[in-house]
């Protein structure tokens, strides 16, 4: 098991990570969810021993690895958010380099490279330079480079940022394969709620450097079990209407969207009529009303008062 215990990191007086505790059991796929600037990348750097914490501990199977991180480094693979590859080299040469720094050589190295190129679907284009690849292809090689030494734990920092849907699906499939077929433990960081919901059995939600909620996706949704999500499609945006709805007793959160408003409300039978009346007063036409069960996105909105993409 890999645990972070009360991790704290302060940069020039500013707390980036504030008493974060989390754990990864072997074979699990765990999500770390939070908006940009929540402290996810710093947490990953602390867990993977790239940064020393201001306080707190990182433990591998119960043993602290802060002072001697070598034992941890042997078993983790980190996929950084940035494309950490040599752009002037081919995918094959990059993987060869990352294999060689993990002391792989000869047939073993060659087999591993070809195996991973197959997994990421770039075997046919392995000789092409990274700089000629699309963003999605680069991200796939970025993942493969972290897997050269068959790590037990893989930590992925927003591996799908800014890529096309096809590459995104390929990456998600690769993560599933790693976790379900190879038994690799995955810590998947993202601000895409739907990815975490698809891939992870447990989720930590982070904001302003703190873990604000943790549990399985079901447990987190249950935070909003006494609430509904109301999607109002309006003919035009109206701030005054949003303001009036915010002041209604059963309304917990109001988020303005392109097509209308999203309301998180306590389950209450009289609310709909109040909403319709308020819309009439503001001369706003309600085109459609949709009541849905809460998603993790709604949980995040409920907990922080803002969306993941804010």
């Amino acid at each position, binding site marked *: 098991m890999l645990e972070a215990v009360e991790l704290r990191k302060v940069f020039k007086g500013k707390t980036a990570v504030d008493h974060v505790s989390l754990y990864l059991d072997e074979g699990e796929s765990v999500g770390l969810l939070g908006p940009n600037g929540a402290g996810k990348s710093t947490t990953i750097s602390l867990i993977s021993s*790239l940064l020393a914490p201001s306080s707190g501990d990182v433990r591998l199977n119960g043993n602290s690895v802060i002072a001697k991180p070598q034992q941890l480094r*042997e078993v983790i693979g*980190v996929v950084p958010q940035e494309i*950490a*590859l*040599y752009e002037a*080299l081919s995918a094959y040469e990059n993987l060869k*380099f990352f294999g060689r*720094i993990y002391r792989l050589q000869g047939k073993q190295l060659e087999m591993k490279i070809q195996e991973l190129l197959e997994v990421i679907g770039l075997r046919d284009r392995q000789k092409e330079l990274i700089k000629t690849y699309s963003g999605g292809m680069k991200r796939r090689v970025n993942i493969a480079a972290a897997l050269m030494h068959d790590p037990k734990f893989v930590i992925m920092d927003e591996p799908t940022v800014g890529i096309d849907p096809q590459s995104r699906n390929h990456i998600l499939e690769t993560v599933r394969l790693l976790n379900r077929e190879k038994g690799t433990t995955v810590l998947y960081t993202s601000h895409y709620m739907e990815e975490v919901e698809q891939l992870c059995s447990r989720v930590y939600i982070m904001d302003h450097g703190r873990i604000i909620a943790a549990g399985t996706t079901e447990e987190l949704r249950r935070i909003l079990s006494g609430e509904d999500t109301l999607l109002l499609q309006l003919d035009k945006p109206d701030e005054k209407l949003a303001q009036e709805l915010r002041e209604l007793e059963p309304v917990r959160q109001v988020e303005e969207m392109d097509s209308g408003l999203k309301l998180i409300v306590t389950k209450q039978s009289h609310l709909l009529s109040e909403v319709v009346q308020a819309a009439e007063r503001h001369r706003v036409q309600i085109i459609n009303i949709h009541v849905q069960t809460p998603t993790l996105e709604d949980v995040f909105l409920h907990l922080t008062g803002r969306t993941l993409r804010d």
Partner: protein
Amino acid sequence: MNPVFMAQWMKEKRSPLMVLLFCGLSIIATLLFGQSADSKLKIGAFPASGVEADTAEEWLEVLNANDAIEFIMMDERKARSEVNEGRTDAAIQLMEKDYRIIASIDNPNVQLVGQIVHSAFMEELQLRAAEQFSNDAKAFREGVESFLENPPLAVGVQTPDGKDLIEYDMNLQLLFTFTLFLACFTIGYKINSITMEKVSGIWSRMILSPVRKSEMYMGHLMYSSLIGFIQIVTVFLLFRYIVGFDLGGRFGMLIIVAALYTLTIVAFSMLLTGILRTPEQFNMVFPSVIPIMPLISGAYMPPGTITNQFLLLVSEVLPLKHAVDAMVKISIYDAGWPDVFLPLAKLSMIGVICMGVGINLMERRKG
């Protein structure tokens, strides 16, 4: 260390343009500026109207017996236009038994030309006058020449240890300056790839691998040193065996100084990389700082040109000054190790300090 070194080599193989460009620039700059550094004054000469071409050629031969000025026969119009346009200080109009100096300004060069031409004409005309009183003019001329070859009183200039005075070769100094200066760029940009790897995240990936940090630094430093060293040696070999420069009898010593200089520049670049935060900052500051080095060191100018005490003090911390100093001593003055100990010691000290401070700054930055 090997994978790090090899990755740099692979990148180099893909785009060798920078190294080739700086090698080429060293060669071109030395050839271009070396030619203009030829210290011999060149003065045009032309016959006056009515003077036979043979007579003018005879006077030209007499004038060119001196070592300080080279007189070149040319068309009158060209000679006059060169003086008028300031491309040369003076021209000489050659007459039967006289001359005229054509000059647009009065400066020390014109005076020197005047002295040399006057002395040559006086000597030759005196000899011709004396010939008229001898029975055999040819025998008289030979007797005078033989007498001048073994004069009863000879004045010579020698070094304190009794050796002949060595003529300073500015071309060699420029070769060393341009080669070492341009190698700085190759080395600097290679060292900058450490910062680039840190920014891109490759460095962090290596930290997580079994490769030790010392190996990561060594891989980069060894590669940058080697590529810079190969560039310097290639240019030296080219000038020695193809262009035909006389680099002296101690080529091996020159190579060792080049190796030490390369290591010092690697350290100097590490210091700058440690001070500057991003590859972009380095790319902006490095090409602005490095060209100042040969200027302050006085490496483009003959020795002793820079006399300002402040500039001399600043130049003491610049590796180029000490490397050129040592190379000039070795190649021109045939100096041995004890003679170049001081510049080499200074080079080594600069290298050690820059490397220590540079790596320290880089490691601290991580936070």
